[in-house]
């Protein structure tokens, strides 16, 4: 069942056991798991079926610190959430991403990769993925890893018919919780806003916040402030340890053999460090995207020449009326060290149309990450030279310690942390089952529960964690 307003939904008399806030990959996956188990569920989706400027305006916010994307363009607020602009890149966090690292404080999860592996079969069906191949060691330091570019499932489009026909799942569009109320043990209700106006209060036995890697923190911070700590009783880490995947062009490479690594449809291959190399150099995880030269024959020769004799290559490119870049390009994305100082706060001056304070994101890259970028490229370049696979050149701004460029990708639009998972209530918000510490009926889904970010795109892991949470909730609710 899909409704366009809370008013229309209310008239059905539907009695849900649980309320899921948000219909992105996490919320939709949990709802489908519970619905399939015969549990009546309501999903509140703030936006409608399509993008609208009016809905998107609720996501405006401010960033303090490093340059970052506008907060209303880095995510989407309509059915299917940010899957609507997802590029479809898939990989699950590595086993090593779940382990604590002595050289990086506050790393390590309370669960291991083995805890989500039983759900990967479902994830492959949902995201329409072929099987992943195992990583291939290139050296003791570098792995050739696989990142599958899936058809980029738009959750709203893919599941609209299924949800419309479902008897157990009610999706209510244009409706969201401006605030949850709680007594320090349970969520007692939600104040709703539907189609531009106050829609009263709503209650359910269980609530699951799946509003996104920025918005979960905003909702919980605001609700907790209004309930005097009754929504997140242990709030020391709430909004904190927020992470992204900073991404920059890091250099070029001349390859000895262009068929050495099998590339995907975009002529790309991906590389990451081994745990031993990370430990030895005391750096975070990273991913190098090698984009092989797309040029054939003579153009490829000139592109190779552009690395070593740029002036000559420029002249030859001019003769060919082409702009040929130096051989292969290297992009680096890396794991951010989880820092309490990288955090989401509520604006003291700016509110949305419903009166909820907007986000003020405080975000800075750390010196450890800067070292990860440089040492990561050196590690990759050393492997390429030692194995005679090619030669790498690191961009000057990286070698010389220059400022981060502001005209490049900057980051991956991956919003992680803020309500992180853990056992220490001072450094985490939810437990290993994604239940808010100290609360009996309140759970969080999505990448806001990530303790560390690893180096890969988060959607595959988000979906696996959502399958796991859906199964857990099904057992809890059935009791």
């Amino acid at each position, binding site marked *: 069942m899909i409704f366009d307003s809370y008013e229309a939904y209310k008239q059905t008399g539907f009695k849900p056991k649980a309320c899921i806030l948000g219909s992105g990959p996490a919320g939709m996956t949990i709802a489908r798991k519970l619905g399939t188990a015969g549990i009546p569920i309501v999903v509140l989706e703030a936006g409608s079926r399509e993008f609208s400027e009016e809905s998107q305006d609720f996501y405006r916010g401010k960033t303090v610190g490093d340059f970052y994307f506008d907060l209303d363009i880095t995510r989407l607020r309509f059915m299917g959430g940010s899957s609507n602009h997802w590029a479809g890149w898939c990989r699950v966090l590595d086993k090593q991403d779940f382990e604590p690292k002595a050289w990086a404080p506050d790393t390590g999860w309370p669960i291991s990769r083995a805890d989500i592996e039983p759900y990967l079969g479902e994830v492959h069906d949902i995201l329409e993925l072929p099987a992943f191949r195992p990583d291939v060691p290139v050296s003791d330091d570098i792995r050739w890893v696989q990142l599958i570019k899936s058809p980029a499932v738009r959750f709203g489009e893919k599941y609209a018919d299924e949800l419309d026909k479902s008897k157990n799942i009610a999706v209510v569009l244009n409706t969201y919780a401006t605030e949850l109320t709680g007594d320090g043990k349970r969520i007692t209700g939600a104040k709703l806003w539907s189609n531009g106006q106050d829609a009263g209060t709503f209650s359910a036995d269980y609530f699951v916040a799946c509003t996104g890697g920025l918005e979960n923190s905003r909702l919980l911070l605001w609700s907790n402030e209004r309930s005097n700590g009754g929504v997140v009783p242990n709030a020391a880490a709430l909004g904190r340890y927020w992470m992204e995947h900073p991404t920059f062009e890091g250099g070029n490479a001349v390859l000895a053999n262009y068929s050495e690594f099998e590339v995907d449809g975009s002529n790309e291959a991906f590389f990451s460090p081994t745990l031993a190399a990370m430990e030895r150099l005391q750096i975070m995880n990273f991913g190098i995207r090698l984009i092989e030269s797309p040029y054939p024959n003579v153009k490829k020769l000139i592109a190779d020449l552009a690395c070593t004799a740029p002036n000559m290559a420029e002249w030859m490119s001019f003769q060919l009326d082409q702009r040929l870049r130096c051989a292969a390009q290297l992009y680096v994305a890396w794991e951010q060290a989880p820092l309490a100082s990288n955090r989401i706060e509520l604006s003291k001056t700016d509110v949305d149309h419903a009166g909820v304070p907007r986000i003020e994101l405080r975000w800075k890259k750390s010196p450890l990450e800067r070292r990860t970028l440089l040492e990561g490229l050196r590690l990759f370049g050393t492997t390429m030279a030692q194995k005679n696979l090619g030669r790498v050149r*690191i961009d000057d701004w990286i070698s010389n310690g220059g400022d981060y460029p502001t005209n490049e990708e900057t980051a991956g639009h991956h919003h992680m942390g803020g309500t992180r998972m853990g056992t220490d209530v001072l450094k985490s918000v939810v437990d290993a089952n994604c239940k808010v510490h100290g609360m009996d009926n309140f759970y969080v889904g999505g990448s806001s529960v990530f303790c560390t970010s690893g180096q890969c795109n988060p959607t595959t892991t988000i979906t696996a964690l959502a399958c796991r949470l859906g199964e857990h909730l099904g057992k809890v609710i059935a009791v």
Partner: protein
Amino acid sequence: MSRFIRKMSRRAIMQALITLPALSLFRSQQPVVDPDEIVEINGWILRRSDLA
């Protein structure tokens, strides 16, 4: 040292000076450069042998 030089004939001193360059033949060889050593030059990560 100066008394030792005074006792030497000028001819002997000249002969000694003339043979000085030949002493380099007896000097130990330069340390061998590893062609596989990895070096970083102008941002390039290279093998030493790439520089030959």
